[in-house]
């Protein structure tokens, strides 16, 4: 039954296939490597202490990104402070109270859609609901848009992490006579804490690079501002504006900002991973 030609043919197809998928992997890795390389080369050459001490300059003058960094941090903090409790409570409902309720299926579905919904649409939504009502751009609106992005991320990770908590733990606490809410807060949350923190970190990483929802909510501000009721600068918005400009020094600042964001995002994701791994 031996058929050497068939065997040779199958081997040839196999070799071609292996070459193709190794090629695909190389192709992908080369592109991504190129991006990181250019980012490092251009970003590092633009790094200087003045980035953190001076505000965004008019073209042709020395300056930094201090106001943009401050704005990004302020809005992210507010967004996380608002979005995290809501996300954790909603995730808790899905995992603890409504695990098999029909409502929970709807919420899960909607949440997963929101998780990947275009962020620019969320910007439009907040513009309609907050900016139009207030009559002006504000950091509150920017933070609200970011919070809408934080919530689904936290809901998903919280639910996943709570589902990993063994039922035996809950039952042991119930057997001691503890009320359900007490069990959730003191047993389940505590057992899933590292995973839930991971979710929050991932959410921070996600919003720190978001540009589209900030363009017409927080807008931009050339100056150092801590007034959440007025327009506020943010790193992504500054990168967008400066990169699209024809001025070389603005473009250098854009690269520096891009490097800062990437480093921040990668650091957060790596910390999140380490936390997650320690748990498992």
């Amino acid at each position, binding site marked *: 039954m031996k058929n050497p030609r068939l065997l040779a043919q199958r081997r040839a197809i196999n070799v071609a296939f292996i070459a193709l998928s190794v090629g695909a992997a190389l192709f992908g890795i080369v592109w991504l490597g190129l991006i990181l390389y250019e980012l490092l080369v*251009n970003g590092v050459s633009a790094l200087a202490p003045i980035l953190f001490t001076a505000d965004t300059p008019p073209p042709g003058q020395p300056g930094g990104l201090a106001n943009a960094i401050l704005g990004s941090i302020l809005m992210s903090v507010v967004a996380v402070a608002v979005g995290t409790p809501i996300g954790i409570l909603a995730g808790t409902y899905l995992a603890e109270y409504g695990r098999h309720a029909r409502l929970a299926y709807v919420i899960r579905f909607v949440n997963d859609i929101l998780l990947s919904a275009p962020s620019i649409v969320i910007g439009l939504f907040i513009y309609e609901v907050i900016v139009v009502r207030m009559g002006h751009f504000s950091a509150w609106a920017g933070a609200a848009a970011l919070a809408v992005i934080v919530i689904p991320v936290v809901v998903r990770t919280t639910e996943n992490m709570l589902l990993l908590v063994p039922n035996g733990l809950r039952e042991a606490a119930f057997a001691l006579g503890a009320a359900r809410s007490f069990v959730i807060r003191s047993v389940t949350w505590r057992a899933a804490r590292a995973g839930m923190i991971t979710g929050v970190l991932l959410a921070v990483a996600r919003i720190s690079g978001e540009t589209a929802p900030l363009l017409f909510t927080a807008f931009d501000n050339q100056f150092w501002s801590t007034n959440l009721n007025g327009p506020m600068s943010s790193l992504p918005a500054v990168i967008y504006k400066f990169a699209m400009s024809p001025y070389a020094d603005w473009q250098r600042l854009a690269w520096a900002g891009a490097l800062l964001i990437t480093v921040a995002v990668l650091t957060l994701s790596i910390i999140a991973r380490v936390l997650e791994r320690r748990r498992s």
Partner: protein
Amino acid sequence: MVDIALTETLTATDRAATVAKGGRRDAAFHALTWAAAVLVVILFAGIMVSLLLGSMPSIKAFGLSFLISEKWNPVTDKFGALASIYGTLITSLLAMLVAVPVGIGIAIFLTELCPRPLRRPVAIAVELLAGIPSIIYGIWGLFVLAPWLQVHLQPWIIDLFGNVPYLQDFFAGPPYGIGIFTAGLILSIMVLPSISSITHDVFLTVPPMLKEAGYGLGCTTWEVMWRVVLPFARTGVVGGAMLALGRALGETMAVTFVIGNAHHISTSILAPGTSISATIANEFTEAVGSLYTSALIEMGLILFFITFVVLAAAQLMLGALERRAGGAS
């Protein structure tokens, strides 16, 4: 760890009171979590309703012609979204054409071919790259990729297809650098990590026994992947690709930098165009007049609708997979 201080001398009435208190707190906490969960649905409904209300003036003024008109003239208040819708669809299609095969290739490489000690680091690297913000891809596309394409790849493509009937129109010059093609390419690089990491996860749900049985029968790696792994993982792979498509359709920053912002449809994919998200990002803050703003919001509504359909399909497919994986283990 848990401090439940129950005194031993608890009378029956105290006991009843404690239980009742626990019950009340329980109900309050239950209601609180329920409210937070419902808020997610309210947000979703709020997005739809506010976009719908915001686009009412434009819907009333243009009706269906908004969808089929290419005309975009803020000066005369004549708006049609066709060029943007076309740009959104064609750039995402291009992105999928490149990213799906390459992403699956990477996933196959990771699950079957990659030397074992390298697997975890490469898989983690791919996942980390999936988290890089889109504006980074945008700035790279604008400063590095577009100039390179303009000088090297595009003139070559234009020459290559210059005398081929039909195709010459798709690849007609001049080489702008920026344009539909560049935007599609950037998008494909951007969704690549998410496609390969989802596909990789899906491949890992294939029971090793099935693959081992295949190898045991003397199958080559290709035969195992093509006849065993891919059929088993089909729904998940398609779902992952749909999820990536949903993200590509709504992607703003990576596209806005390089698409060229031209409100008309060219047959050549090398020409500048625009997409829904790029139009909104570029023009929203500068839009004067309520009809202009409303037209942009209606475009947002269209984008939300398109991505909703694609993402919902992706959810249903990935959900089916999850249930099966849950049932199998």
